């Protein structure tokens, strides 16, 4: 009897906490289905006539479509660039002993420690000088900093998990070291690469502060559009903002759910097993 009470109370606590975590997402979804008058009704309406008006206006809004494209371009390019430079680096860190390996590893990790705003201040000057402000290449380069530590450290632990015997066997069979990397190590860690690619995409897609400070109207990712686009002179267009918010989070939720297994192993590998 006492056991049952304990179990039930556990589930009860979990449900209450789950409510806390789900509610903001639930509420922004509800708000996105309301007319603009209903969104600011006092008291707030829980029963109302749902409408898709916000979505139709948001999805035909040329600015938002532009933001969608910008976000996609920036995320795809910066993730690919990060993977191209980060994955070989992680392999070297995992497999070779060379001078300065530890120092350079910690150096990469320090990009995660650094608050973005600190690097943005000199960036804005340098980018201005190089005419990179408000352009795709500028933001793509800046977004490398967002993800590089994640890519390197998660991939390093993935490479460490490949048994070294496999690679040695390939070497004995006549593979060169480059071939071992291309034909053995990378394919064997493809699930890890998928995981970091998806995670980096989500982080780049959601990233606000670099995009907010380094771009203006030429390149405007979705988070920036949400932060600035719906706040009018007198009032905020909550309905439109909510619909745009839902449009922003749907791709990331789908990506995260469809690759949940990869993500969990990827994330926990990167942090728990040092």
């Amino acid at each position, binding site marked *: 009897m006492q056991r049952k009470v304990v179990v039930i109370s*556990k589930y009860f606590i*979990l449900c209450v*906490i*789950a409510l806390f*975590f*789900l509610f*903001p*997402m639930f*509420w*922004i979804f509800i708000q996105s289905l309301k007319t603009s008058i209903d*969104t*600011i*009704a006092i*008291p*707030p309406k829980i029963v109302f006539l749902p409408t898709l008006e916000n979505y139709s206006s948001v999805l035909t809004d040329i600015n938002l479509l532009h933001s969608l494209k910008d976000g996609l371009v920036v995320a795809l390019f910066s993730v690919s660039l990060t993977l191209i*430079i*980060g994955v*070989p*680096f992680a*392999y*070297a860190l995992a497999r070779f002993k*060379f001078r300065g390996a530890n120092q*350079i590893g*910690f150096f*990469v990790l320090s*990009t995660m*420690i*650094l*608050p*973005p*705003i*600190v*690097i*943005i*201040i*000199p960036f804005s*000057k*340098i980018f201005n000088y190089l005419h990179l402000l408000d352009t795709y290449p500028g933001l793509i380069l800046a977004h490398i*900093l967002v993800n590089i530590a994640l890519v390197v450290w998660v991939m390093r632990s993935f490479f460490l998990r490949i048994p070294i015997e496999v690679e040695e066997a390939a070497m004995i069979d006549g593979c060169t070291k*480059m071939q071992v990397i291309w034909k053995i190590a990378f394919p064997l860690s493809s699930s890890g690469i998928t995981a970091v690619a998806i995670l980096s995409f989500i982080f780049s897609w*959601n990233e*606000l*502060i670099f995009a907010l*400070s380094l771009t203006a109207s030429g390149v405007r990712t*979705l*988070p920036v559009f*949400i*932060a600035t686009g719906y706040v009018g002179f007198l009032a905020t267009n909550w309905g439109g903002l*909510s619909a745009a*918010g839902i449009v*922003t*989070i749907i791709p990331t939720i789908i*990506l*995260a*759910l469809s690759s949940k297994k990869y993500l*969990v192993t990827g994330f*926990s590998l990167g*942090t*728990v097993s*040092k």
Partner: protein
Amino acid sequence: MQLKQLYKKIQERVNKTAILPYILTLPLTVILFLLLIYPLVYLFYLGLGQSNFPYVSLHQVRVFVSRPFFWQSSKISLIYLLGSMGGTLIMGFLIAILLNSINKGCSIFYVIFIAPLAVAPIVAAKSWSMILNPLYGILNHILGYVSIPPQEWITSMQLALFSLIMVTIWRWTPLAVLILYAGLQTLPKQPEEAAAIDGAGRWQILTYITIPLLKPVLSITILLQFITCFKEFDIVYGLTKGGPAECTETLVIRTFLEGYRYMNLRHAAVIGIILLIVALFVTNIGHKILICQQER
């Protein structure tokens, strides 16, 4: 033909000498140098240089640091940091323990608890600002049912920082859950079972067995939470932008405002340097503690 030979020669060279690791690490090192080292040097130049270094500039930094707003911001940063770190850790630990102890429905709860990580923080912040709105926010409405008078969650000086900490806990607890839960699952079961046979209660098992075994994972979590909460910008920007009356202005927000609203890049650079030093200092200590634990 010649090209092929040359390629082979290069490859032989690569295989023979220990040059391969350097080839693999070179691109990233170069890019990081351009994206990190050079800008950071330039940051110091922006903040301290430009005038008779080091005499005048250090004096200027001293004057700058002695301004009240700097200490005000530091104090707010500290409260915010401690509040959100404590909150996320306690909450994350509680959730991880509960998740680990139930049998059914674990995976559904798990998905719910890590979902906020995938949501764009600015969207979450905007959603929270609708919920917390004093006039048409749902929270005050719900609290009305249990006859708690409506509160000005993000517009009053007393509650704004508290609300920010609450939203930050919402945002970053999932990270703690992710790591702590993974850590709990890798723990061996035998010590707990042995203690249970010896007659230890739940609480005793938790405090004397589980927490000590979990210590390395706990310290990584604490370090990560420090890093993420210290950097947090999106939530504060989306909810209060440092207001009302600068009472939620953390150092990160202040740097942003100095640089992009007051157009005072020099001040921004000085705060940036201070942030950089604090971040490096704390993580260095954290790193040392972690290494000590691994050696033991």
